[in-house]
């Protein structure tokens, strides 16, 4: 990834950006996010197939934004997150430089949003292969089995909200769970409240989830909560023929409509 | 670029001249054809009046064969075959269930991916761009472009040209150097399938088509359909007898006009 380092260094040296968000190897070799502000330290940046965290989550964080203009190492999910964040006015196209990474790990030349859009449109936007099998399996269960499965999984939830913190689309400064007038979601962690929380989260991401799977990876107790949003991603495509994060002018599925939207259950 | 060609029955029979001129053009313009192997009847004109599934299965088999042989584009010179093939593609695209049923009937996988070109589209797309380099004699005649019924109808399905006062053949002929006349009989009925059974009707209807072209001083009637050709040309003695006339305006296929 010499190209990446070279480009990052360049951007910092000529002051195009003030920070490069990327990946580095920590002391124990674990991949972790890196925020490079010094061109001399650009060499720390790495990219390999273990770099799977969706870095776009940092683009809306005040601490990172305070550096100034940002460059970000962006795989497809990151690029799609960026599109969503721009569409939802959380990010300005001119305040970031995208260091795109292709599916085979090479640095892409993403000069502007249009080029990024072109790249995204060419890519496979459905849920990643590795999750499809489990999704299909779950979809095969009968309702009782499904309910039992999710009860079991969600009973483990400790309401740490790591799924929320890891998600680039969960950028609200105040989440519904923090509302207590009324108390929409119980404060305590219990199966029922946990379920309500995860339904709420999935619904809020309907048509906005870009299938990065970060929520599931972030969960300390291993709840496959990413499957909830991914299921809706599939459904959004089935019903409305759109994938999130394909343009910087996305119309969110739940804030728009077509008069002839089809459903079969309303009598 | 490899094209498939579906000749259909006419081109191997009464419209041999059409067939030969299409192949001659292809050779002159270095366009390679592959005849769809083991092709069958397209079903025109009887099948769709008798049995809907049969009328779709016949063309579907042809299209499936084309797909199997990797022919992305098929040229269909006969307007009736063209119409049947396009209608089938349209119907099966609209109704996936029907598509599956037909696939079962023809015992072949039908995807509907081939692009079907009529002869005018084919000329416009592949011949015209090379025309300047290859043309020997400009076709400098006044012509009546006769489209007949099947080339542009049903308009919603074909999505080709416009049903009333179509223009594509006029444009192609202009590019060949001809002067198309203002011709109101472009899509009037020639008598079509009555060719054999009721020659009197054919004589009456085709006679009007010829009369107007002659009256307007056309040197030739240009057609792109074997049926039109046979009614206007082969039935000429009957027409002249019916109308007590002596029309002798030639009727030629658009492909022949290029090769002239």
């Amino acid at each position, binding site marked *: 990834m010499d190209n990446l380092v070279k480009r990052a260094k360049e951007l910092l040296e000529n002051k195009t950006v003030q920070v490069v968000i990327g990946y580095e190897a920590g002391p124990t070799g674990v991949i972790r996010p890196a925020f490079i502000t010094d061109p001399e330290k650009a060499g720390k940046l790495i990219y390999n197939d273990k770099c799977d965290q969706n870095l776009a989550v940092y683009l809306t964080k005040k601490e990172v934004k305070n550096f100034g203009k940002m460059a970000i190492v962006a795989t497809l999910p990151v690029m799609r997150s960026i599109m969503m964040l721009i569409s939802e006015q959380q990010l300005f196209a001119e305040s970031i430089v995208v260091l795109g990474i292709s599916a085979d790990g090479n640095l892409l030349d993403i000069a502007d949003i249009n080029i990024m859009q072109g790249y995204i449109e060419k890519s496979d936007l459905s849920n990643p292969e590795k999750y499809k099998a489990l999704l299909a399996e*779950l*979809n095969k*269960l*009968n*309702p*009782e*089995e*499904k*309910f*039992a*499965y*999710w*009860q079991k999984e969600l009973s483990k939830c400790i309401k740490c909200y790591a799924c929320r913190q890891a998600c680039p689309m969960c950028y609200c400064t105040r989440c519904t769970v923090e509302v207590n007038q009324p108390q*929409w979601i119980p404060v*305590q962690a*219990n*199966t*029922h*409240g946990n*379920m*309500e929380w995860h*339904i*709420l989260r*999935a*619904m809020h991401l*309907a*048509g906005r989830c870009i299938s990065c799977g970060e929520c599931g990876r972030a969960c300390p107790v291993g709840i496959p909560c990413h499957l*909830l949003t991914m*299921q*809706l991603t599939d*459904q*959004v495509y089935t*019903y*409305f023929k759109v994938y999130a994060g394909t343009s910087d002018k996305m119309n969110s*599925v*739940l*804030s*728009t*409509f*077509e*008069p002839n*939207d089809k*459903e079969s*259950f*309303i*009598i | 670029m490899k094209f498939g060609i579906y000749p259909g029955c006419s081109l191997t029979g009464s419209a041999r001249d059409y067939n030969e001129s299409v192949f001659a053009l292809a050779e002159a313009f270095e366009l390679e054809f592959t005849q769809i192997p083991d092709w069958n009847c397209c079903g025109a004109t009887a099948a769709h009046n008798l049995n809907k599934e049969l009328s779709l299965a016949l063309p579907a088999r042809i299209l499936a064969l084309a797909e199997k042989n990797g022919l992305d584009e098929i040229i269909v010179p006969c307007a009736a075959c063209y119409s049947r093939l396009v209608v089938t593609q349209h119907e099966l695209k609209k109704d996936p269930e029907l598509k599956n049923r037909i696939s079962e009937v023809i015992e072949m996988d039908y995807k509907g991916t081939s692009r079907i070109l009529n002869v005018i589209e084919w000329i416009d797309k592949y011949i015209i761009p090379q025309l300047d380099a290859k043309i020997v004699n400009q076709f400098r005649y006044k012509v009546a472009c006769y489209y007949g019924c099947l080339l542009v109808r049903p308009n919603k399905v074909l999505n080709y040209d416009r049903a009333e006062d179509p223009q594509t053949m006029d444009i192609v002929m202009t590019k060949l150097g001809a002067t198309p006349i203002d011709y109101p009989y472009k899509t009037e009925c020639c008598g079509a399938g009555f060719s054999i059974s009721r020659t009197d009707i054919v004589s009456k209807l085709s006679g009007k088509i010829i009369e107007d072209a002659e009256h307007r001083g056309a040197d030739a009637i240009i057609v792109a359909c074997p049926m039109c050709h046979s009614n206007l040309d082969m039935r000429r003695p009957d027409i002249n007898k019916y109308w007590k006339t002596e029309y002798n305006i030639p009727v030629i296929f658009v492909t022949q006009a290029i090769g002239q």
Partner: protein
Amino acid sequence: MSDFEPKVVAFVCNWCTYAGADLTGTSRIKYASNVKIIRFPCTGRIDFMLLLKAFANGADGIIVSGCHPNDCHYTSGNFHAKRRWIMFKELMDFMGIDMNRITFSWVSAAEGAKWADVVNATVTRIRELGPYVSYKEMVDKSVEEEVKNG
């Protein structure tokens, strides 16, 4: 289960279904008294969380009803609602929450008879399904969990 009387909550819009239910009344058409109505300005106002809250508070069935497409008093609230319910239904189906317990309908201000039909059909169906035991059990267990965990 023969004496089971289901609790059904209806979330309806003010302009069509609420008015339609008024018409059921003025037409003196009888329907099951298990249904109780909550009035909203528009189906667009109905938060999906309220449906979950209804189940959590012991509802056995739910009716969500508003203006037919193109008839919304606010022109498009019901269209947005429709998309919301499509997503909600798919999520519920995926999680095994029983969507047979929720009736989504369009009932106009002129469809007093339809309202009675919607209510009766829903109540009959819920009666057959019985109380929503699995959801109630989860809620009750959760309360216990809480007590246990202090």
